[in-house]
């Protein structure tokens, strides 16, 4: 029996892989929300420290070289900094008194803690490796108070929303993902519609009637409808409007305001229902 097994080991292995593939499909069928969540969480917690370490290893030679280059000017810099340090200590003492006053005021105005300016700053650790999905992982999780469906912004505008949260990390679904949509409004003409992701670095302004006043270079912002994204954040700019031959449909292409590939840090706002 063992001999037969060993002789046909590769065949058994291949069959096992194919059975696993079928099992994945069977598991998925009818369990859309919860399939694989735990395994994915575990794999992220294993992989992300590796990703961080490799990034550090890659940056290490460059950092060392830069440090050696700067060694020459270091002594002069130390003297200058010592003087600056003294003046800053004085300044810090002043700031501390202001800070204590500020914290007292914040306690009085507790509602302030729930406003969007309480945004958490998160660093992007890894981007989605799949060509069909647009998301990235950030270094804040439920331990830092991040919740699912929290809106995510950058200084350029709306980035997306939090899709999954683990204790230390969160996954942010970008506006450009084909499963993403946000209620938008044209800043110039006040025409409302839905901005949808296309899976590429482009958006589409949908559910807009063909005779509505939307022109090239119009800026679209979030309208606040839908309960996930707050009002007034930049989404993108209209780049092209195409009418169908029969005039019944209109296709509006939108360039996102955010350069997703250049993002390093993002702000996670509290979910909209928290401060509404």
């Amino acid at each position: 029996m063992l001999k037969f097994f060993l002789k046909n080991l590769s065949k058994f292995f291949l069959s096992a892989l194919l059975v696993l593939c079928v099992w994945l499909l069977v598991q998925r069928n009818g369990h859309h929300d919860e399939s694989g969540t735990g395994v994915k969480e575990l794999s992220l917690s294993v992989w992300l420290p590796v990703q961080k370490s490799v990034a550090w290893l890659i940056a290490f030679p460059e950092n060392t070289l830069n440090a050696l280059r700067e060694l020459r000017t270091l002594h002069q810099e130390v003297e200058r900094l010592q003087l600056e340090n003294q003046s800053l200590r004085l300044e810090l003492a002043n700031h501390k008194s202001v800070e204590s006053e500020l914290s007292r005021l914040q306690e009085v105005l507790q509602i302030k803690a729930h406003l969007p300016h309480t945004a958490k700053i998160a660093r992007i650790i890894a981007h989605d490796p799949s060509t069909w999905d647009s998301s990235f992982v950030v270094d804040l999780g439920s331990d830092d108070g991040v919740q699912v469906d929290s809106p995510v912004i950058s200084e350029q505008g709306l980035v997306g929303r939090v899709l999954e949260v683990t204790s230390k990390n969160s996954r942010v679904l970008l506006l450009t993902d084909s499963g993403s949509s946000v209620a938008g409004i044209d800043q110039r003409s006040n025409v409302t519609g839905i901005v949808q992701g296309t899976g590429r670095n482009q958006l589409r302004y949908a559910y807009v009637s063909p005779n509505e006043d939307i022109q090239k270079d119009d800026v679209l912002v979030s309208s606040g409808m839908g309960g996930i994204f707050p009002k007034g954040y930049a989404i993108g700019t209209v780049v092209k409007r195409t009418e169908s031959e029969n005039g019944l449909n209109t296709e509006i292409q939108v360039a996102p305001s955010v350069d997703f590939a250049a993002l390093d840090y993002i702000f996670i706002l509290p979910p909209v229902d928290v401060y509404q």
Partner: protein
Amino acid sequence: MKIPIQAVWLLALFFVQQLPGVAAWGVDLPLVFTVLVGLRTDIPKAAGWGFLAGLLQDLLSSSWIGPNTIAKTLTGITACLLKRHIYHERVLTQTLLVFAAALFHQLLIWILLKWDGSAPPAGDAWGIVWRSLGMTTLAASAVCFFVVRFRKRRFDPATA
């Protein structure tokens, strides 16, 4: 314990794949890996490496576990079957094989997403497929150039 060199390559590829812009531009390095490994090994190993590459990709992406795993397993097997009929130690041949495999792989994913009900509309799906086909083939042409040159120097008796 000896760690297979393919595992090291796979981890390195995933590090690159998760850098900003790589997947966003449609480059699928794990697919290139699957095809190139498939061209140089037997069917069970090709399926195994394809399965592993796809599983990692699904685990680290926002999608459900399945589309990349299944598509890359089958792509690995297909690449392995193709090598029996085609002399593949040429840059152009390998690049064309990656192109064909990428087309097969993306269509499989689209079918699986369609079955699942999470596929984007057809227009968007074609946009993703074509962009990925172009960029993955372009990346593959660079990878294949080095792989073929390196293997020729190493294994060709005339240049070894």
